[in-house]
């Protein structure tokens, strides 16, 4: 068989990482700036499930050293252009708890296995703990706050999170001021800083060994998701919107400030993009989305934008019904990453020239398709979206499984290398 472009890139990133680094940084920058890059970047995100290709879930989520090994293996075998690998669960509430401590807030944004062991939160379940050893972690959320307590949240969200929510949601934080509480919270912050250092170390190794530029990320959240994920459970918010509409609106509004604080915490260290994963979006009908969800999220995005932080929003599920609202943002506001809109090409066309659009690769295709099918799919997609300005190819965050055939993932990268310019 002849050597394919992806094989060349695998070799080249090892032999001349600096040149590849420059190339990747450029195509990414071009895409974000809505230009046509020399080739279409391919991105791969994982919350760690994919790493169980090499390590047991009960190991990979608890051993930062193994995370480094797995990350290097991943890029070595699958030379994508842009990647965020955080084998950790949603933990944004801890960042908000520390919103007034910018040196800590961003380091505890994700919950790792050891961090879960320290606070014993009920938001998540882990392999070898609440789950069998072979399963990836699960975020299950829960209901920790009553509708009557919205007022308290509105009056002081950070205090509310610290004094009411976390004591209920974390076994080891149940008695603020107790020895167990103090020990746990201090160890938690320490562990977060350890995890963050390990990520910095991993990024440096990826850049040095394989020419992968690190992603200068900071973190924010949609205020209504904050309420759904950490306080009231998604179904609780859905009912609150109709039963206590004013309280929900005020609560979302009150959360904008602390969320923006967290988002700006990493700015002095060079962060450029705030990662914002959405959850409730596809579950809300447009009328409720436009009235309760979008305004506060938009405010977060615009506030950060004013401070030169672009947003990198993950639109979970099918965001088709709400896609027009994105056009309310200033042109070049950031990256819109779509998980599985009903029609990706239509979404791209709508946002073309306004937003950098990321996504387009169904996880099921990678999982069950063949290299040939994937090649044809990507070719068709790139043709339909030619000249591909402001486009980044990616499967949804919702987990490439470890069973995904290597040849399929390579075929995706290969196709993006092949179908450029005239070849599209």
């Amino acid at each position, binding site marked *: 068989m002849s050597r394919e472009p992806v094989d060349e890139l695998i070799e080249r990133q090892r032999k001349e990482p600096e040149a590849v680094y420059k190339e990747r940084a450029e195509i990414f920058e071009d895409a974000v700036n809505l230009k046509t890059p020399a080739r279409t970047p391919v991105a791969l995100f994982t919350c760690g499930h994919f790493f169980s290709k090499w390590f047991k879930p009960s190991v990979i989520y608890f051993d930062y050293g193994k995370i480094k090994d797995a990350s290097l293996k991943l890029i070595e075998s699958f030379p994508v252009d842009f990647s965020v690998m955080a084998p950790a669960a949603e933990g944004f509430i801890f960042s908000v708890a520390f919103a007034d401590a910018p040196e800590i807030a961003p380091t505890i944004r994700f919950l790792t296995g050891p961090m879960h062991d320290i606070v014993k939160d009920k938001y998540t379940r882990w392999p070898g703990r609440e789950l069998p050893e072979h399963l990836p972690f699960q975020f299950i959320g829960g209901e920790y706050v009553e509708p009557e307590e919205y007022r308290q949240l509105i009056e002081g969200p950070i205090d509310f999170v610290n004094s009411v929510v976390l004591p209920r949601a974390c076994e080891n934080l149940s008695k603020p001021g107790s020895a167990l509480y103090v020990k746990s919270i201090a160890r938690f912050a320490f562990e977060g800083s350890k995890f963050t250092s390990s990520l910095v170390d991993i990024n440096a190794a990826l850049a040095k060994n394989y020419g992968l530029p690190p992603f200068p990320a900071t973190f924010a959240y949609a205020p209504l998701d904050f309420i759904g994920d950490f306080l009231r459970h998604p179904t609780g918010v859905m*009912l609150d919107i109709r039963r206590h509409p004013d309280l929900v609106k005020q609560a979302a509004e009150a959360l904008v400030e602390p969320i923006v604080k967290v988002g700006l915490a990493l700015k002095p260290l060079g962060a450029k993009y705030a990662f914002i994963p959405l959850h409730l979006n596809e579950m*809300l009908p447009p009328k409720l989305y436009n009235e309760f969800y979008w305004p506060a999220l938009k405010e977060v995005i615009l506030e950060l934008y004013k401070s030169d932080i672009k947003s990198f929003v993950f639109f979970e599920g099918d965001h088709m019904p709400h896609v027009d609202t994105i056009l309310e943002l200033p042109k070049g506001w950031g990256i819109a990453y779509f998980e599985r809109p009903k029609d990706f090409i239509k979404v791209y066309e709508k946002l073309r020239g306004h937003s950098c659009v990321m996504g387009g690769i169904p996880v099921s295709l990678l999982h069950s398709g063949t290299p040939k099918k994937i090649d044809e799919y990507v070719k068709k997609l790139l043709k339909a979206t030619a000249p591909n300005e402001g486009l980044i190819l990616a499967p949804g965050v919702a987990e490439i499984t470890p069973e995904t055939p290597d040849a399929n993932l390579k075929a995706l990268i290969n196709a993006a290398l092949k179908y450029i310019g005239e070849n599209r």
Partner: protein
Amino acid sequence: MSVSEEFIKSILELDERKALEIARRRLEAGEDPLKILGDLTIAADKIGEKYEKGEFFIADLVMAGEIMKGISELVRPKLKELGKVREVVGKLVIGTVQGDIHDIGKNIAVTMAEAAGFEVIDLGVDVPPEKFVEAIKQYNPNIVGMSCLITVGLESMKKTVDAIKEAGLRDRVKIIIGGGRVDEYAKEYAGADAWTNSAAEGVRIMLKWIREKAR
């Protein structure tokens, strides 16, 4: 518009206060509670239809479910008080399988089955196989329903059916599986009798089973 129509309309408009108010008014006026439950069946059907057509979103389903639950809770004591029993068409034991905590769809299936006249025993979420087995022994249902939205749940469904077999109860119950992660393959793998991605269709299948058995 008749009271009945207005009642159904208020449910479809997700106007909780109005729907509950009309239900209360109808009960106070001495109307047959069974008639109110009949209207609930019609509303539940229409809600399922709207979701399938993309007119309703998940948040709408959740609200509709709450409203219907609230109405059933109003009507039930009245039925008892009148010494009336609604004719129970069949008994359903239902739960979301072990490892899975998604319950929005399951709750809708519960509401719609109740509206259609089933007595429903809801075991909740993350239900281990033993709990299904115990419930079958205790309640002697015609049908067992399992809800599953995540891939991990496939194994749990299989384990549950196996446990039911081991307990020698498989012949006593029909088994239906529902939820986003079920299909023909899942049905075969788990050893269930039917599968569905729609509560309305599920209820139709269950009613068919009951009719077949009556014959």
